[in-house]
């Protein structure tokens, strides 16, 4: 029972990934930059794009999910590695103060805790997640999502005017 990892020339493999995504999905942006395939997609097709990555292109490793609070919308970055030099970076933006997005745990089980962390820190609801609890903060009596820009800390500093 061995896992097969991709072989061969990196550049042709990246082109292959790019074509694979382009032919199947409507992408807003798609390009190869260095050893990274950069994709920008709408949240509705995110699940389909990641399913293509895992099932068809055999990109097996989900490295991390980064959420960025853009005040009013949230930017999610899914970083995938094929473990042999190639990377796929999928970006999507969800609007609204209380955003909802589909979970990717069905495709990448490792996303379980990444999504729990994102829920904990930003309050993003992942639809269909098997176990959406807070990861770090208290389960009860704590109604905040600390990494939101609206969560202010008492020692906020500015560096304006500093030379």
């Amino acid at each position, binding site marked *: *029972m*061995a*896992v097969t*990892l991709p072989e061969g020339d990196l550049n042709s493999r990246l082109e292959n990934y790019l074509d694979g995504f382009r032919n199947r999905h409507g992408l807003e942006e798609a390009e190869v930059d260095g*050893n990274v395939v950069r994709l920008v997609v709408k949240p509705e097709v995110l699940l389909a794009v990641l399913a293509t990555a895992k099932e068809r292109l055999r990109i*097996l*490793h*989900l*490295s*991390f999910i*980064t*959420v*960025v*609070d853009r005040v009013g919308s949230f930017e999610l*970055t899914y*970083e995938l*590695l094929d*473990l*042999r*030099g190639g*990377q796929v970076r999928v970006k999507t933006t969800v609007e609204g103060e209380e955003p909802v997005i589909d979970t990717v745990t069905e495709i*990448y*089980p*490792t996303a*379980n*805790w*990444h999504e729990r*962390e994102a829920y904990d*820190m930003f309050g993003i609801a992942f639809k269909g997640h098997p176990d959406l609890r*807070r*990861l*770090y*903060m*208290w389960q009860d009596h704590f109604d905040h999502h*600390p*990494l939101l820009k609206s*969560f202010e*800390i008492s*020692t*906020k*500093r500015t*560096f304006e005017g*500093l*030379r």
Partner: protein
Amino acid sequence: MLSEERSKDIETDALSAPAAGRLANPDVRDEFGLETLDMSMGPQHPAMHGLLRLILELDGETVVRCDPVMGYLHRSKEKISENRMYPAVIPITDRIDYMNNMAMEYGYCLAVESLMDVEIPPRADAIRALMNEFSRIMSHIPSIGFLLLELGAFTPILYAFRERERIQTIMEAVTGARMMFHYIRIGGVKADLPEGMPEEMWKYIEGLEERLEPDFVDLIAGNEIFVARTRGVGKMTQEKAVEMGLTGVPLRCTGVEFDVRKHYPYGWYKNLDFDVVTDEAGDVEASYRCRIGEVKQSIRMIKQILENLPEGEVMGDTGRRIRPDEGDGFGRVESARGEYAVHIVSDGTDTPYRVHYRTPCTVNMQLLQEIVPGHYLPDIMPIMGLIDPVSGAWDK
């Protein structure tokens, strides 16, 4: 599974009980109408690595369910990083994985540098790799010691800390600190190696090479108790390991060859010749063998770096005020525990807009939910030794 040769090497009675026989049969519980017991293990537990709470459901002495509860050492590194100037974040990253601080600094600096137009001098690159490998040895050897300590062997931890002390002395001479180094800076490293230091390092590394086999292999590998407690414990397949997103030793001990230093090379590692250490078995014993193998590879790398240490500056020109371009910066390094990645979002000001640390421990810990059920309660600690988590790293 173990190769036949390996099995023949160590023939003990302990091996006659196959690991599969240890697994619980869930039907038994229903037949006798027995109840399971809920138990909380930690966060203050003498054997636990740091502050982790495990909610366990026990059927006799067999674990049925394991639910890790984290956050007891959460210090909100990501929020703090958003409120500091770029260079001031480096000491914060030091405290994420306090057993392997160099890699934490390195990943962050790589991420910032990817957004800047700065050339790292070759000597700085070489010193970064050199210190990283020392840091890896400093983390791997005590982790072997801790694993053995949890199995009841006291000697290896003393030997391990002897080595750690000696490396810490070297680190102190180079960086000025014994643990929280703050040595790797954006654009290079803080200071050049002190005079005579390469010779000192060479002397130490040769000594370690001599001591490694007798102190950490001969004393441990064939020990009957060690084999009985680790072989077949925490066993997982390659598919499972990849599916769970494991990296580092837990992934490599199943036989998947993946190392960030090799497959996503950065800095001076492009110039180094080393092997990715893998093992077939995918259990706790295999992870121990992998760690020993990695220490040997680190020794090999340190020798290569010291032989060809380039001359010149150790700090690139970053300008007086560090203000990376707008955009996303990424840094990815192989820490002692696996793939450590930093994602920085810059808005062109003095402070990062968002910093995300992908710590290997957090991801590797998901494994506990998956593989602990079916094992005996005392097997949890060896499995923790396989993952080798650090409290600061999984909680951030």
